[in-house]
């Protein structure tokens, strides 16, 4: 498998994040064309879109928790 161009992957991901979740798959398919590697990479990143929304937004409660655990 060839590593798809990172810039292209990000362009599609960035645009897809602004597309409603229900229409996202069709959007990705349309923009990746026949490039399966590109599509796989874009989908692997966007699989985290829902989690990413709040990720790293509440910095230190989580940090304090894990420091205490250490």
């Amino acid at each position: 498998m060839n590593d798809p161009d990172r810039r292209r992957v990000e362009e599609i991901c960035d645009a897809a994040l602004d597309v409603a979740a229900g229409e996202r798959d069709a959007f990705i398919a349309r923009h990746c064309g026949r490039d399966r590697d590109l599509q796989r990479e874009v989908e692997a990143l966007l699989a985290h879109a829902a989690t990413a929304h709040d990720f790293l937004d509440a910095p230190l409660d989580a940090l304090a928790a894990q420091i205490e655990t250490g």
Partner: protein
Amino acid sequence: MASAGQVTGLLRAWSDGDTAVLEQLIPLVEAELRRLARAYMARERQGHTLQTTALMNEAFLRLVDARNIRWQDRAHFVGIAARLMRRVLVDHARSRGAHKRGGFGVKVTLSDGLAVAAVQPALHLLALDRALEKLARDDARKAKVVELRYFGGLSVEETAEVLHLSADTIKRDWRLAKLWLLRELDGERP
């Protein structure tokens, strides 16, 4: 401790483009962050939580003469301090022996011996640090954006000021960086 005037002067020279002063500035800022972090950790055991933003503000107020500072210089201070803060916290986590991989479903132990499950899956600091290293190799700018925002507590606008980029670029970098990091962290999970 370094005098406020000394740090203020170095900071001003640095944000005016004199990169040579960084060698003097970094140890002063790092020492203060370590000192403050230790104090916060001690309080944390009594039920206080550590807030990097608060720690950063306190370090700034202690080290910098606020009357003689330009508004941009605060952002530049955090520009240096975010990297040092990351180092301080990672060292701390490491010294506590927190080398477990993964880190989801971490438990928090309170001082009275009661163990409570963290409400959110706690992010493992060392795993995040590794994921950030990887991101820095692929895309140094995005890693820097994460460092400034997460470890420095900077807003989108302040991050834009430090990196001389538009706020739109920072917003885009931030949301894409989080996707790359999450994918990396997901791959690390046992």
